[in-house]
């Protein structure tokens, strides 16, 4: 067993964080920093007839005020990486000029010597608005009126049909076709640290440094360089400590471009720290689909085909990946089942709301919810146990790589194994017996099961807008300390620890001698970043591969130092030694009259020798570092089974999750404690989606859930104890067999929770409920029959 990999190793990140000594963007203080506050639209849709900034400009401590007119043509638009046929991409300028399209749309920026003064002056800006008709509901918007953009003539960003197989025949030939409308409500990511930008421009060196709370420092550098017209190699983006992302920081935002530009104009550091209200209004939202399921099945529960017609709410603008999210839904509609024909028809729609984009799971939770609800509908219709419907349609473990009708090849899987383990942990049979007894007593009890598969390790470059690989450099410094530069950009996932575990084992060094550096584009080679559960499966693989290259190089030098042939040098626990046979032969090689070569040499000694370079073989490149850019051949497909038992209070409709059992398979595990943490966090975000969270806009496009007093993310007391276990099916896609786990909880959990509640309410005729399922809804259902 490895000393570090696979072990529960305490995080190396934590000592600074538990002492309040980390540095998030707002903790970085530069002398003479100016502070920015934004005036944002209070209307969801309006023409701006005029903006008067004169009073604000003369307010105390105000340095400058900028409006859309001031920056027009000087800063490029907010980028969208969408490349779908017929895609309409509205011009998203960093400040609105004459047309605002959502509440929170930035209109003007005040720059002042302190943040209180900047905020004060916002109230002194006079905007004359002409309100325009507002379109909020995605299905209404799809009908074409009112228009978000007059010039388009409709509100359709794009339409897309995907999937394989003859869906018409599959549905026509099925014994049963079941239909269900399904709403995936809008969610707000709520990273505990909002966004923040600090920009500093040195006019002499022409260097722009941007500290920004981002998941993608290198991609942000490229895009910001383009937006600002600054050479990319003069832009340094630093993602310091990042206080959560969940996809909301997998983007390039107007404020990042504008704050940087202001710094270039004024020649001083400029900072903007997003408030929570701004965060809720103007950082991307997630989900936001209204769809129609048609699923065909035979009498034995076999699924014959699935059609999903979906209206996807884009919001007013397309942020970096906004249009791509529904395509991920389409890829995963097969779930972990053999379905011969699948079709998705997407209608992507503009509305007068904040953009949607990648929120943890990003299109896949929607897919899981669709196929798992479909499986439950089939079970209910046929009077089968939901477990049996699932088992009936699983591919066998020897059918992998498994081809789906959505065009994917699932890498490896043992869905039966995870299901059986979860059923055992839950004692499913007893759960059902208890449920029967409880119902006889008049109690409202339900059990839900979700067997999910997700798509991770995003991804092969061909399947992404730009670059699905990841990079790593590993080097050993002259003093023997090991430095890892990773293109991944962890922000809570713990890869400073797990990557160090890899290096410590591979190089036979102490964990504390390894430092992992990330999130600084001037230190780290180009990288892609952290999202799509790719950090370890793609980024970690790059580290692993770089370590192998590094060991090869070190072995060459060690052999030279040992006076032996590289093929006869063995490396174990941090020391290179000549194998017994060679050692017996003498082993002083061609060293001639010099002292006999040592029998072994440590990797630290090799590192020093590589830098001193007095005793290196001919042609040996001094220094000791290796770089790998890892391009994965496929995605990975983690999977698992979640089982939930709920009891509902008849009097209040309150939903009590009594058991939560989860068996997840994320392939090879580097640090089980970190994996548990990822699963916990994901499940709890799912509990939030299932029971509490919803971004609510009223019919005028006002964001009703505008603060954390109104938008309900789960608190500790709202969460049950989570019972976790794992199966471990290695992925063949990368040498370590890692699959990824960052999004498992948000993808696998909601169907189990919803399924349990629907099951509990099935005696009341309930077959489906949309999220969030609130006590009020449940109470109404129960009282209607009382």
């Amino acid at each position, binding site marked *: 067993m490895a000393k570090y990999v696979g072990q529960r190793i*305490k*995080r190396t*990140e*934590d*000592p600074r*964080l*538990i*002492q*309040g*000594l*980390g*540095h*998030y963007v*707002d*903790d970085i*203080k530069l002398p003479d920093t100016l502070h920015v506050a934004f005036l944002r639209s209070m209307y969801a849709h309006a023409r701006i007839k005029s903006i008067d900034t004169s009073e604000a400009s003369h*307010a*105390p401590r105000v340095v400058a005020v900028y409006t859309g007119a001031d920056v027009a043509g000087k800063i490029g638009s907010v980028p969208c990486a969408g490349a779908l046929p017929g895609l309409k991409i509205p011009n998203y300028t960093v400040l609105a000029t004459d047309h605002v399209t959502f509440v929170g749309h930035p209109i003007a920026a005040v720059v002042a010597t302190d943040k*209180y*003064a900047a905020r*004060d*002056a916002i109230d002194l800006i006079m905007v004359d608005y002409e309100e325009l008709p507002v379109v909020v509901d995605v299905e209404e918007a799809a009908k074409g009126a009112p228009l978000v953009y007059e010039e388009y003539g409709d509100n359709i960003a794009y339409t897309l049909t995907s999937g394989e197989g003859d869906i018409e025949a599959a549905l026509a030939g099925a014994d049963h076709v079941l239909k269900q409308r399904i709403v995936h409500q809008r969610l707000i990511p*709520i*990273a*505990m*640290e*909002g966004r923040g930008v600090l920009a500093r421009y040195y006019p002499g060196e022409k260097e722009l440094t941007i500290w920004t709370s981002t998941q993608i420092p290198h991609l942000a550098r490229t895009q910001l360089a383009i937006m600002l017209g600054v050479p990319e190699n003069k832009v340094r983006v630093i993602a310091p*400590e*990042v*206080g*959560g992302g*969940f996809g909301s920081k997998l983007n390039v935002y107007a404020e990042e471009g504008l704050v940087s530009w202001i710094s270039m104009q004024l020649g001083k550091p400029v900072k903007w720290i997003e*408030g*929570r*209200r701004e965060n809720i209004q103007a950082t991307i939202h997630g989900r936001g689909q209204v769809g129609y399921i048609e699923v065909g099945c035979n009498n034995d529960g076999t699924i014959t085909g699935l059609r999903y017609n979906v209206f996807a709410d884009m919001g007013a603008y397309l942020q970096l990946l906004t249009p791509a999210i529904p395509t991920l839904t389409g890829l995963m509609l097969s779930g972990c089942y053999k379905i011969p024909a699948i079709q998705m028809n997407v209608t992507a729609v503009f509305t007068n709301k904040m953009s949607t984009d990648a929120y943890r799971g990003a299109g896949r939770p929607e897919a899981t919810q669709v196929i798992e609800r479909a499986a439950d509908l089939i079970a209910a219709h046929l009077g089968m146990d939901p477990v049996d419907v699932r088992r009936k349609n699983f591919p066998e473990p020897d059918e992998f790589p498994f081809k789906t009708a959505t065009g994917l090849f699932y890498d490896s899987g043992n869905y039966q194994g995870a299901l059986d383990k979860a059923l055992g942990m839950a004692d499913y049979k007893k759960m059902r017996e208890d449920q029967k007894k409880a119902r006889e007593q008049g109690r409202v009890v339900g059990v839900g099961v979700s067997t999910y598969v997700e798509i991770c390790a995003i991804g092969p470059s061909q399947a992404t807008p730009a670059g699905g690989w990841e990079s790593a450099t590993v080097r050993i410094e002259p003093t023997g300390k090991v430095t890892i530069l990773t293109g991944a950009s962890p*922000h*809570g*996932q*713990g890869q400073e620890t797990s990557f160090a575990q890899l290096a410590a084992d591979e190089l036979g060094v102490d964990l504390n001698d390894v430092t992992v550096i990330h999130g600084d584009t001037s230190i780290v080679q180009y990288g892609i970043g952290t999202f799509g559960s790719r950090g370890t499966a793609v980024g970690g693989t790059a580290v692993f591969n770089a370590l192998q290259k590094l060991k090869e190089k070190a072995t060459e030098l060690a052999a030279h130092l040992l006076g032996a042939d590289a093929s006869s040098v063995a490396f174990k626990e941090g020391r290179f030694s000549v194998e017994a046979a060679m050692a017996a032969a003498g082993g002083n090689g061609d060293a001639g009259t010099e002292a006999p070569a040592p029998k072994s040499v440590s990797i630290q000694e090799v590192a020093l020798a590589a830098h001193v370079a007095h005793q290196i073989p001919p042609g040996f490149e001094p220094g000791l570092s290796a770089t790998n850019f890892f391009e994965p051949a496929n995605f990975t497909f983690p999977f698992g089974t979640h089982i939930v038992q709920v009891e509902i209070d008849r009097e209040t409709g309150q939903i009590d999750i009594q058991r939560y059992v989860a068996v997840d398979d994320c392939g090879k595990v580097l640090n089980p*404690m*970190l994996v*548990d*943490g990822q699963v*916990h*966090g*994901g*499940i*709890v*975000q799912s509990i939030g989606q299932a029971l509490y969270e919803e971004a609510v806009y009223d019919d005028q496009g006002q964001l009703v859930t505008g*603060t*954390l*007093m109104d938008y309900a*993310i*789960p*608190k*500790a*007391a709202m*969460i049950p*104890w*989570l019972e976790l276990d794992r199966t471990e099916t290695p992925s063949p896609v990368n040498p370590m067999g890692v699959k990824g786990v960052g999004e498992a909880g948000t993808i696998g959990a909601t169907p189990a929770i919803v399924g349990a509640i629907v099951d509990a309410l099935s005696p009341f005729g309930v077959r489906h409920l949309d999220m969030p399922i609130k006590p009020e809804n449940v109470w109404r259902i129960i009282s209607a029959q009382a």
Partner: protein
Amino acid sequence: MSGSVWLDQSFTVFKSSEVTSMKRTVSVTVNGVAHQNEVEPRLLLVHYIRDVLGLTGTHIGCETSICGACTVILDGQSVKSCTMFAVQADGANVTTIEGMAANGDLHPVQEGFWEQHGLQCGYCTPGMIMAAAQILERNPDPTEADIRHGLEGNLCRCTGYQHIVEAVQNAARRMKGESATGD
């Protein structure tokens, strides 16, 4: 009674320029160090701690008293420093996250969070640790439900709270002198 009459009688509306000229002196002891500063009356305690004193371990997560990232201990009570003015802390004794470790030794709650992976991104962590310390000060032997209830004023978006609950349980064992692992 109309709102405007009530307002007119109760409040004097200041322009921001006047506010800045009305600085007040506050004397606050933070982590055992006495500070005296001239501050605007409207300066929030959290901004005083972070921007005036430079102790940036106390974070701001919501500005509405919901998330608890800004929790500090003020005269023995955990408070949310984003919804309190610095002038209200005049004469008070404040402990922030930077004051928890003593003589190079981590506080047992800090140890518990490290041992049990009670944090991921770390942003809520200082407030969580301050709140957890208060829970244990009031109840050295809390149940899981006690801990979850006690942390209702602190939001975490990463951990799902389970490891935080275990961190507090771990800290409780340490503070009672038991083996932290519960063996």
